């Protein structure tokens, strides 16, 4: 990858007392740090540092409406730190020929965190749970794992596409053919999560997409998209400004729109 401009931020919003969103951006490098060696400096330099770099970015949104929100928030942080460490380990073994193994290990990391949450807190409506949208950029290929209603979008040219599909009761019922779109829009349970890490159901969605130079990837919590529509997101991501400015503008729009939820955005533009 010739360059990646990436920035993330989170905001508590205008209504919530605490912020249960979390995000992480991390780089992973296949590299070796040589402490001492009898090799020639040139040979040592060949192995020292460098190596292919990958970027991990993730947005997690602690499930609201449950008691123990603070607990959920803490569990999310712990989980995310686990992702970074374990995903970095996965990347050491990454090769394009075995990318499915890399994806499996990433997915397993998500499942392990889920199991750990269940083991510690049990399975109940009071137990901490979280959504997650995770992307790992290796070269221009973005590997994605998605749980719940945090989202990933990408902008190519002027066209914004939502990569992830919300894992909500409404979407699930429409999939079953039990609800029409109109029914789902009116049902109070429609926005409840059908899948969450630490929840009663976990069905990670796994995918990938090859990005092109100039493409912009956005990961966000629902605190953004409930106040900022696709057209507004596309307009911001289409501006010729740094990723930091884009992320700040998106969050500002969500706050201006009401800021009824915690809001988090990670913007990554492929150079």
């Amino acid at each position: 990858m010739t360059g990646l401009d990436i920035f993330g931020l989170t905001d508590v919003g205008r209504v919530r007392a605490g912020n249960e969103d979390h995000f992480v951006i991390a780089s992973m490098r296949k590299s070796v740090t040589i402490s001492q060696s009898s090799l020639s400096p040139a040979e040592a330099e060949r192995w020292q540092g460098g190596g292919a770099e990958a970027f991990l970015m993730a947005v997690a949104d602690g499930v609201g409406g449950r008691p123990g929100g603070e607990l959920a928030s803490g569990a999310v942080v712990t989980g995310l730190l686990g992702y970074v460490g374990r995903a970095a380990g996965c990347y050491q073994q990454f090769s394009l020929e075995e990318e499915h193994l890399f994806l499996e290990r990433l997915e397993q990391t998500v499942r392990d965190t889920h199991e750990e949450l269940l083991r510690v807190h049990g399975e109940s409506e009071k137990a901490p749970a979280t959504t997650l949208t995770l992307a790992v950029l290796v070269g221009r290929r973005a590997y994605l794992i998605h749980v719940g209603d945090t989202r990933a979008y990408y902008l190519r040219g002027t066209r914004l596409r939502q990569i992830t599909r919300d894992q909500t009761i409404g979407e699930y019922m429409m999939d079953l053919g039990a609800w029409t779109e109109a029914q789902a829009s009116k049902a109070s349970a429609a926005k409840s999560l059908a899948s969450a890490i630490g929840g009663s159901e976990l069905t990670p969605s796994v995918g990938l997409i090859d990005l092109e130079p100039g493409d912009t990837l956005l990961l966000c919590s629902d605190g953004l998209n409930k106040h900022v529509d696709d057209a507004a997101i596309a307009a911001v991501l289409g501006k010729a400004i740094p990723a930091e400015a884009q992320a700040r503008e998106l969050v500002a729009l969500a706050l201006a729109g009401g800021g009824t939820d915690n809001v988090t955005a990670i913007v990554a533009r492929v150079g």
Partner: protein
Amino acid sequence: MIQKKICMVGVFGAGKTCLVQQYVHSLFSTKYHSTVGVKIDRKTVALDGTDLTLLLWDLAGRDDAADISVSYLRGGHGIIYVVDGTRRETFDQIFELQTIVTNAIGVVPSVLALNKVDLTESWALKPADDAAMAKEPWQVIRTSAKTGEGVEASFAWLAKATVTGAAQ
């Protein structure tokens, strides 16, 4: 455990995702969602006493066959070409897709799924098309993601073919 990568290929709206959903989750949705990039599902099947995991790569369909991203095909062990039997143009384009796929990864075991066979009133393929299909190295199976007809058979045939190396 043996793993085989199966790519779902076809133009926009042919029913690739619905076939995977029916096969993996026994689900059929009437709500259409276009796939962005690649969605990957897994299903493990028993084949002659051995577990075989199928990695199902559901590639985004395009309006034009030539727009397919060949980088997604790399390492594919089998292909399911999906035609919407009620839309003649999806059949016409499948031969161009087949050429693109073969140029990218060579000849691998393949199924031609003639999908939406439940919609008999709107069926757009003619008996004369059978001759064109018969010339190509693929197994032709009529499928319905809605009723499940031919779905299990398509994946089962391809799973076995990827192991035995049978092209047709």
